[in-house]
């Protein structure tokens, strides 16, 4: 069976049926209806993998209920760790075992044994990283008593498997989503239309921008030899491809949730307008980055600071040590979360280095800004910061996109500042499309501040949107690709 993707006809037929029936289902049965729809959505790909969704749901539900009822802290802790082991253990087996096993075989090969390839061929269940993180955050929140353990198994199962967010997020927290799943859902036309607008915008990002850029990028990453300056464009284009691919998916997920009456968390906030890497991570894949911040970075940073006796260690403040250890490990594990491969680990390490360097060079940069007079030119300073940050991010994406570390190095090694003799019309076409996209993106970002738009009559706005829908049909790529983040 095929995967029910947001850019497939199968999904939209499925959603049309669900949406048509949803508001007629009595409130008390809505959760059953959505849960069944979510399991159908997941099982549409592979029925047997439904077990991998249902089993950890049951285990984490029972563990959370057990923790809530536990009389001793020891029992509570034991239950907590067993719940974490089950959910993270499944993630390890299905996502990382192959990588570690192959690394072990490679090491054996280096030590003189026969070189062999892993024959495990484990098929990773779709969305496993996303629903595991949802369960883990729930367990942690219950353990630290930030939220009560959910009594209703059906609601909890729906929180884990809610179909718009199941395959690639956003990773909504229990504290935010569970109360919504319990509340009555009303028919709100405004909410439905705004959800629909988001879906169309998400489709535009995916089908028009991401899938179009895919061809240019794919060609250059596979054969970078002699492509010179085109490789710079391909790196920039990839930054937009992955953004449009993933934020397009998120927009559609948020839009579908909104049409059904739920508010999902915002996953992207115009990340390429960031003035620093830290700001970038506050705007990129927000549901994951805030997850990593709350459940990994902060505990790691505090734990490091607590272990340092006194204010300084090796003439460096305990606070700085906390930040360095926390951010480096968080970024490393964040990289590993994205994929079981060394390129992802390097990508994560790069971000660790970026942020540590940025933190350590704060004073120096401040001095330089004063000397160059850029502090008095805030707009120029902001533009330069955005440009510099975007370049750092685009460079890191090369490792993320490359099939192997060697391919990434070859790619970087082939970059030159002049163009090859053959002109690429695709570059021009893609650049125009990107420019068009950036104009709309800028408009979206500043929509609230644009006065004429506020005064625009609603019928005219509707006409503009109808025209945009037609434009989407004209410009969309017919042979749609899978979403990049589905592989994670």
């Amino acid at each position: 069976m095929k995967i029910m993707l947001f850019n497939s006809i199968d999904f939209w037929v499925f959603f049309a049926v669900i949406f048509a029936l949803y508001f007629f289902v009595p409130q008390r049965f809505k959760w059953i209806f959505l849960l069944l729809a979510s399991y159908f959505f997941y099982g549409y790909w592979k029925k047997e993998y439904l077990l991998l969704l249902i089993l950890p749901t049951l285990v984490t539900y029972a563990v959370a209920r057990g923790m809530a009822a536990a009389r001793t802290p020891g029992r509570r802790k034991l239950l907590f760790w067993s719940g974490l082991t089950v959910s993270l253990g499944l993630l390890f087996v299905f996502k990382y075992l192959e990588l570690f096993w192959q690394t072990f075989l490679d090491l054996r090969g280096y030590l003189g044994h026969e070189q062999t390839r892993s024959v495990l061929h484990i098929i990773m269940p779709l969305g496993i990283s996303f629903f595991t993180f949802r369960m883990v955050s729930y367990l942690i929140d219950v353990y630290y008593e930030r939220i009560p353990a959910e009594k209703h198994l059906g609601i909890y199962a729906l929180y884990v498997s809610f179909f718009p967010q199941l395959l690639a997020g956003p990773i909504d927290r229990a504290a935010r989503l569970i109360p919504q799943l319990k509340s009555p859902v009303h028919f709100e036309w405004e909410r439905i239309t705004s959800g629909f607008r988001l879906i169309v915008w998400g489709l535009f990002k995916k089908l028009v921008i991401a899938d179009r850029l895919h061809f240019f990028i794919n060609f250059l990453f596979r054969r970078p030899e002699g492509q010179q300056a085109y490789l710079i464009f391909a790196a920039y284009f990839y930054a937009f491809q992955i953004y449009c691919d993933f934020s397009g998916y998120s927009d559609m997920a948020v839009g579908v949730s909104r049409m059904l009456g739920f508010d999902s968390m915002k996953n992207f906030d115009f990340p390429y307008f960031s003035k620093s890497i830290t700001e970038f991570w506050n705007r990129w894949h927000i549901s994951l980055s805030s997850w990593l911040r709350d459940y990994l970075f902060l505990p790691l940073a505090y734990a490091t600071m607590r272990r340092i006796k006194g204010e300084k260690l090796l003439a460096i403040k305990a606070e700085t040590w906390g930040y360095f250890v926390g951010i480096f490990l968080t970024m490393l594990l964040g990289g590993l979360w994205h994929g079981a491969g060394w390129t992802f680990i390097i990508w994560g390490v790069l971000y660790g280095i970026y942020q540590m360097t940025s933190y350590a060079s704060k004073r120096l940069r401040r001095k330089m800004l004063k000397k160059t007079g850029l502090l008095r030119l805030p707009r120029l300073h902001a533009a330069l910061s955005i440009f510099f940050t975007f370049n750092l991010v685009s460079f890191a994406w090369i490792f993320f996109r490359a099939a192997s570390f060697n391919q990434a190095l070859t790619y970087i090694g082939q970059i030159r500042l002049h163009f090859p003799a053959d002109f690429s019309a695709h570059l021009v076409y893609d650049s125009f499309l990107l420019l068009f996209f950036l104009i709309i993106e800028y408009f979206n970002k500043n929509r609230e501040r644009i006065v004429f738009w506020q005064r625009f009559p609603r019928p005219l706005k509707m006409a503009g949107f109808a025209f945009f829908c037609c434009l989407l049909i004209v410009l969309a790529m017919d042979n749609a690709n899978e979403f990049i983040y589905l592989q994670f």
Partner: protein
Amino acid sequence: MNSFICNFKKQYKKAVFELLGFVMLLFLFDRLLFALIRKWESSYYKQNTTYSLSDKFAMISKKNDYKILIFGTSRTYDGIHPLYIKNQLGLKSFKEAYVGKGPMYNYFFYQEYKKQVGIPRVVIYGVDYFMYNITTSRSWMQRFNTDVIDDLYYKRGPSMLLANKNIIDNFANTLVNNLQSNINRVEHSQIEQNYVLMENYLGLANTGDVITQEPPQYDTVYFFQYPGQEGVYFYRLLEELHRDKVTVLLISLPDYIGTYRTNKFHRKYLRSFRYYQRKYANVHFLNYNQVEKFDLNNPAYFINGGYGRTNSHLSRVGAEILNRLLIEDLRKLLPENEDLKSK
């Protein structure tokens, strides 16, 4: 239920009004944009000499020398080469096989070819697994009488843009590719237009684009049966070739093993073309897409294809082997070879 009805009652007028308004606007813009694109497309192809058929025929000297006419898609373009046939059999072939040319194009082209060059003695037609599922690229169809073709070509539907999406995509690709070829001066479209370049074309080298690793899972496809998109024209062409007493060789070109496995209903596919062999005495079906005849496992013989890819193209090396096999079969099937040369 109550809250839904209560809210719906309050908002339904606005909802229904806006929904109807939106659908009407969509309909309007859909028609408007489609009309604009159609007009642009039509004038573009009319002005662009790449798509002029009379220019193409005007270039041919000694029209009587051409005894073989080769039809097919890009697979045939990369797989069957007139130069080998000329060197081995001394026969000149006019190759019309190219990407985006389906049965409809071949049928209309044959009418023009008869008028401008004459009736060939042999037609080699490279058939594909996707034969009944392809639509001829609009750009090629523009070569013929457009008033007739337009009615055949554009589909009708609630959304004209969606119904004709493939035509719009083809046009967009044509614009980009032509821009590229105009600036870089040499491109494949020039080969298509110039019969001398076409006669000397021997295919492309393997660049490692073949997917050789079998993934744990990949989508397989079924065979689209007759008539599909343009199958009717294939039938009409065969009827006409039968009337014209032209020997027809339907060639099933080799596919890389991964592609072969992706296309899984081979029996139906073979049955479909063997039917014509039984029906018409002048039609022969030659199947090279089998391991016994051609090493489908060797990725060096292909330039692309693999598991989950529904077609593959022969590399220069692969095409050389195929042409050798084809020439052997041509020798057997055309005992009147000498007769062909003398005419």
